[in-house]
C-alpha cells in the first residue's frame, strides 16, 4: 500500500495531571481499516480523541487527512465521522430525529431511512434516546458517525457490550464502508474484532504502540502454530523445551495449562510433546492445535491478559 496515510501520529505525549495516558506514541494508519487494540486504560481513547481534535497534545504531532485536528478543525470536521464510546445524544431526542439532525449538518448525507433500516433502528425511531437499549444507543451513535459520508470514521469501542447479532451488523457495516473506500480507525479490546475487520492492527499498551502489522503478520502468518494441553501443574517446562526444536517456546500459562508455540505445529512436534509427556508420566488432557491469536501476541508482548 503506497497511498498517503490517513492518520499520522508522531511521538504523541498526553498527560492528565500526574498520570501519563499516552507516552511517546507513534502510529501510521493507511487507507482501510486500522484497529487500535489494547486493554482498558492503555491510551486508546486518548489517542483517538487527540486525532478527533478533542485533546491538544502535550508534545508530538498529529495529522489526520493531512490536517492538524486542533488548528484546522473547521476544515477537518466535515470530513470525519465520530462515534464516541458512549452518549452524544440529547436524552429527550428521538433516535430518528437525532440522526436526521446530524445528517442535516452535512452537505451530501446518506439516505436516513435506508441507514435506519440497515442498522435495525426502524422499530425504535420514535423512541427517546434515554429509553433505547444499550445496543440501540450504540447503533445510533454508529449511524451518526457515518451519515455525513465521511472519508474517515473513528469508532471508539463500537461493539462493547453488544449482543452477537448486533455485533455482526456493525462488522458488516464496517466491511461495506471499507469496500466503498471509507477508512476506519477503531479501538477495541476484542482481539477477534481486530482479526475480523482490520487490515492493520496497532497493539497498544501503557500509552505506546508495541507492535503493528496485519493480523497475519502479527500472528506469524496465521499458521497453526500453537499447541495447548493440560496436565498436572508444575511440570518442568525447561525439560520440555530441551526436547523441542530450537525455534519453539513453551510456557505454563496458568497452573496446569501449557502452551507450545512453534513456526508450524507438524505431526513430528506433536509426537515429541506426547512422548515427552509419556516419559514424565503425564496424561496430556485436551490437546489442541490452533492458530496463534492476537490475544497470544498481546500476552507475549506485555505479559498481560488483554481483558484485564
Amino acid at each position: 500500500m503506497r497511498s498517503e496515510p490517513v492518520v499520522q501520529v508522531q511521538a504523541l505525549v498526553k498527560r492528565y495531571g500526574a498520570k501519563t495516558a499516552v507516552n511517546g506514541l507513534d502510529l501510521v494508519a493507511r487507507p482501510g481499516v486500522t484497529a487500535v487494540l489494547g486493554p482498558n486504560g492503555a491510551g486508546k481513547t486518548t489517542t483517538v480523541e487527540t486525532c478527533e481534535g478533542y485533546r491538544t497534545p502535550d508534545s508530538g504531532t498529529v495529522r489526520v487527512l493531512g490536517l492538524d485536528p486542533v488548528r484546522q478543525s473547521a476544515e477537518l470536521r466535515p470530513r470525519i465521522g465520530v462515534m464516541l464510546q458512549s452518549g452524544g445524544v440529547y436524552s429527550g431526542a428521538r433516535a430518528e430525529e437525532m440522526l436526521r439532525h446530524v445528517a442535516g449538518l452535512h452537505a451530501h448525507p446518506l439516505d436516513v431511512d435506508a441507514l435506519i433500516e440497515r442498522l435495525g433502528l426502524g422499530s425504535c425511531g420514535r423512541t427517546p434516546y434515554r429509553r433505547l437499549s444499550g445496543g440501540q444507543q450504540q447503533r445510533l451513535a454508529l449511524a451518526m458517525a457515518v451519515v455525513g459520508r465521511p472519508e474517515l470514521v473513528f469508532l471508539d469501542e463500537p461493539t462493547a457490550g453488544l449482543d452477537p447479532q448486533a455485533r455482526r451488523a456493525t462488522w458488516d457495516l464496517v466491511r461495506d464502508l471499507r469496500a466503498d473506500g471509507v477508512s476506519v480507525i477503531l479501538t477495541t479490546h476484542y482481539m477477534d474484532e481486530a482479526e475480523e475487520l482490520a487490515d492493520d492492527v496497532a497493539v497498544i499498551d501503557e500509552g505506546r504502540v508495541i507492535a503493528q502489522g496485519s493480523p497475519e503478520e502479527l500472528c506469524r502468518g496465521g499458521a497453526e502454530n500453537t499447541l495447548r494441553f493440560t496436565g498436572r501443574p508444575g511440570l518442568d517446562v525447561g525439560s520440555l523445551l530441551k526436547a523441542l526444536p530450537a525455534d519453539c517456546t513453551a510456557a505454563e500459562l496458568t497452573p496446569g495449562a501449557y502452551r507450545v508455540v512453534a513456526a508450524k505445529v507438524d505431526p513430528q512436534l506433536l509426537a515429541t510433546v506426547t512422548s515427552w509427556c509419556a516419559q514424565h508420566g503425564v496424561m496430556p488432557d485436551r490437546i489442541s492445535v490452533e492458530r496463534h491469536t492476537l490475544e497470544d501476541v498481546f500476552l507475549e508482548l506485555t505479559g498481560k491478559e488483554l481483558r484485564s
Partner: protein
Amino acid sequence: MTATGLYTPRPGAAPLPRMIAAQAVLETKMLLRNGEQLLLTVVIPTLLLVLFSSVDIVDTGAGRAVDFLAPGVLALAVMSTAFTGQAIATGFERRYGVLKRLASSPLPRWGLMTAKTASVLVTEVLQVILLTVVALALGWSPHGNPLAVLLLLLLGTAAFSGLGLLMAGTLKAEATLAAANLVFLLLLVGGGVIVPLEKFPGAAQTVLGLLPLSALSDGLRDVLRHGAGVPWGDLGILAVWAVVGLAAAGRFFRWE
C-alpha cells in the same frame, strides 16, 4: 463484500445558516418537550401571576396588584429560560456528551452557542405572549416605551445566559440542577418579583437591588407601571452582569 458505492465518501458541511437554524429548532424542541422545563418556564410564572393578582397575599403597595406583578413575572420568565433552564439543559448536555459529539460535527462551537441563544429567545417570545395575554385578562394596563422594554429583556437575557452557561460549563450536572433551582427560588423571593424590595431592611435593599433579577424587574416596572423613560441605572447593572457573566463563561466553560 463488494463495493456498493452507497458509502463512497462525499464529505461536506451544510451551509452555516442552515446548520444554525436546524440546531436552534432542535434545541427549542428539546426544551418544549421537557416537562420540568415547562414547569419552570411556563407553569410557575403563570401560576404566580394569577395567584398573587387575584388573592391578596402579599401587600404590593398602592394600585392594582397585577400592575406590580406583571413586570416582575416577565423578569422571572426571562430568568427561568435564560438562566435556570439553560443552565440545567446545558449541564446535562455536557454530562451526556452531546456538546462533545456536536463539537466534532461540522457545526462550529460559536454556531452551537448562537443556536442556543436563538432557542432561548424563541422561548422567551412565547412566554411574553402568554404572560401578557394572562396579565391583560387580569386587568393589566401597561405603559411606557416598548423599545425600553425590549432593551431590558435583551440585556437581562444576556446577563442570565452568561451566568447560566458559567454554571453549566463548570459544575457537575447534578450540582447545576440543584444550584440553578435554588437560585431561582431565592431570587423569586428576594428579586423584587412578588415581594417589593421596600419590604426588606434598608441594608438588604441595597444589596438585593444589585441582583440581576431585581434590576430587570425594577426596570420593567419603572417603564411598564410608571411609564418612565429608559431606566439607565437598571440597564447598567444588567450590562455589568452580562459582561462579567459572559466573559467568565467564555473563559471557564468546559465542553466535557
